[in-house]
């Protein structure tokens, strides 16, 4: 329902989660590890940020969750992108490119 532009930091985390889930469904811990890999250890998302973000995305209807067995045989709650989420990834990516480019110009164009 809400279409407010997500604020910068929160938006970054949301984008990372959505991007990570584009590859395959993942559970909370696996998602944290995947993001570390994808960002080459730059972002270490703590559970205190991760789970509220997952909840938020789930309630926006971009991701959905279900319990399944993980790679090491334990029960875990797996998150996957919904159709709306998949479409959203594209938007968020373009959005991010614009922001990143804008910030790049701002930093470089000092003279």
């Amino acid at each position, binding site marked *: *329902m809400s279409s407010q532009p997500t604020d910068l930091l929160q938006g970054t985390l949301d984008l990372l989660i959505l991007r990570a889930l584009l590859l395959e469904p993942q*559970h909370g*811990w696996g998602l944290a590890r995947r993001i570390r890999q994808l960002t080459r250890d730059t972002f270490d998302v703590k*559970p205190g940020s991760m*789970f*509220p973000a997952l*909840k938020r995305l789930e*309630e926006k209807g971009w991701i959905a969750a279900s319990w399944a067995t993980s790679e090491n045989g*334990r029960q875990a*709650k797996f998150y996957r992108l919904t159709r709306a989420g998949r479409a959203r990834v594209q938007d968020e990516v373009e959005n991010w490119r614009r922001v990143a480019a804008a910030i790049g110009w701002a930093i470089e164009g000092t003279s």
Partner: protein
Amino acid sequence: MRRWLAALKNLWRGRAADRDLEAELQSYLDHATDHLMQRGAEAAEARRSAGLELGGVTQVAEAVRDVRAGARVTGWSRDLRFAIRTFRRTPLFTVSAVCVLGLGVGANTAIFGLVNAALLKGLPLRDDARVAVVWIDNKSLGRSRVGPMGRDYFDWLSHATPFDDLFLFEHGSGTMTGVGDPEQVRGLRVTTNFADFLGVRPVVGRTFAATDATDNVAILSADYWQRAFGGDPKVVGRSLVLNSVSYSVIGVVPSSATFWYPADIIVPWPPDRLRTADSDLGVFGRLSPGVTFSSAQQAMNLIAADVAGARPDRKGWGILVVPLRDVAVQYIRPALLLLLGAVGFVLLLACANVAALLLVRTLGRRGEIAVRVALGATPGRLVQQTIIEGVLLGLGGGLVGLLLGLWGTAVLRVIVPASIPVPAAASQVPLPEGEIGWGIAALAVLLSIAVSIVFSLAPIATFFGGQPATRLNSRTRSSAAGTPRQRATLVIAEAALAVVLLTGAGLMMRTFGNLMRVAPGFDPHDVISLQLKFADDAPTSPYRQASGRVAAMAQFLERVRAIPGIEVAAFAEIPPMSQDDQNTGRFAVLDQRGLAPGDLPTAEFRIVTDGYFEVMRIPLRAGRYLATTDRADAESVVVVDETLARLSFGSTDPIGHYLAFGSRPSRRIVGVVGSVLDDGLDRAARPTIYVPYGQAPSQMMSLLARTSLPPASVVPTIKRAVWSVDPSEPLFNFRRMDDIVSNTVSASRLAFLMLTAFAGLALLLAGVGMYGVTAYVVAEQTREFAVRLAIGAKRADILWLVIRGGLRQALTGLGIGVVIASVLARQMATMLYGVAPLDATTLVVTALGFALLAAIANAIPAWRAARVDLVRVLQSV
């Protein structure tokens, strides 16, 4: 939409979601632990690191919960749970507040239910606010509110009346035969515009058409239809025999159609019979458009003058136009309005009490509230919490109030008689029963909630506008001075309200006591009454002859007097105080010369059989009672009462004098008896002339029998005794004389009982309120008292200090209450009897009584304060 669903789901499944989250976080820990162990960590070490990484399950879970949809709503529901917990922690407060609110709301609900039914709801007929009762009156004859004759009606119709339509009816009763036992039924003879005028729709069949006027057709009331025919829809077309005349049933109407008279059967009025009807006709008129009641009265005044000009027998007679709504409740309205006012005071008192309870509780919680304010609770948050508490409390109070209101309505149905006699109008007015519909119920609960929210918020207001730090401090300082003004105001208000109610109750108590001390002039105890009407419709009926009626009556009396357990019995046309009928006329004392006919005095005429004075125990003052020998063939005699003797004869002995009645033969006075207060205990006796039945045999008589046997056994015996003479003669309308007398004071009794109950409630509430506030102040100041004692104050000083504080407020309230009461008492002057509105005794007794209560309510906590354990209190500092 989706968020809304999610919010609902979260709210609904809050616990399941919490468990799910817990499992998910546990799963996270397990995965992290597995990973660390794969890297070669010890199991315990791995688990510890994983835990550290997670950073606390609770904190994460809380962070997730805040994100969940409907977090705001969950906040409300959390506040709700918190409020319920708070109430459960303080059961004494909760129960008292709910009960006090419930009492206030319940009393108001019950009284309002009655007032609404009686005064506000209107009557069950079409456009009832524009319907008038039309009477005639003659002041010089002392006749008020009499129904006109048929001729009067036709005279009116020859003029342009201010009415759209006039509806005429005649009450009657008849003997129904052919349907089971002979039964006396109540009937109405009506003009054929019956259904149209009243706005009545038939339940079965049809109502009268104009062409039915001369036919023997009948409409039944739904009650009688159920009683006699079991609600059989095939009743239409059946024939009934009423007073030996056969009628064909054409329809059934709801019993409420004849709301002013519980008729069983309704028959049309042939115009020629209507023209010659000389009895007391009932007339309702619906005002023409644009006409007011007062302009209708003026128009009818002109018509009355015109009629009197044309018909000498109508000289001195006027026409009265009275709104129907006023007639129905005229005699109970002052009592109802008084009660409505009084019950409003009860509600205010209950509010003050709840406010005091809430105030004390809020003061007790101000530490908690100050901490919450200091931690950043916004006014909005606190207000939200308080409103939720207020709604809960109000809901509880409202529900308790509703239960009490329903119970009170049932009690009122017992106290308020179904009908009350109208003084000097020879009629009974049916009273509607109070009832609590959904509207009133909803109103009661909403009122309770509104009151509760307002008084919950008031004390909270003091927590804003100061620095949190000083509020925090005030928890530890001993000052109970948080809101001394509010507390004092409440105590003063409670005292004033209670004193007003007490004064009102005191005045009604004295009024009712005075009324009960009034001797009615006869002894109603153990006297029962049954009505009897000679049915003489059949041309062959022996009752068409006066001698036939006299003979039958003598036989009835003989058989009834033979019943074991019946001490004495007699018949009277109009039992004392019953207002069954009116029989008033002029008389002349024969040797009084020079009186113009217009100046002749009037008297009440009472046709009675021998034994009447003995049954009613009306004392003989001079001469003799009436006897069986006072027959048609004997000398014409009368007995007069003391009032007539005094007014017409002064100090002369009336015995042996002759009274003349128009063209009828004059009668010799043979006895003087005590006066009877026929118009009510609070009204003067009127001159009365007792005429022997043998010389004036009327049709409708009431049997009066003095017996101590239970009516359930004696009434059937009496009926059998009468039926042994004439098996078709029904006896009906069983009454106790005690009830007849007590019905005449029902308005006073209602006001007295209810006001006394309210005053008792007020005393209780005010007493508890004063006690509660003082007890709280004492608890707050315990340390101060201990210090005072430690530095040399005497215990008596402490005692006095506390009592003085509380008593000063109570006495201020007492003073204000006395002033308000003396203003308001004047409004209830019409309800009072034998006591002035500003009755000094009542005011002094009330004031002293209340002062005593206030002293006790303050002395108990004061005494506790004075016994304070010095060492323990000071150590606890």
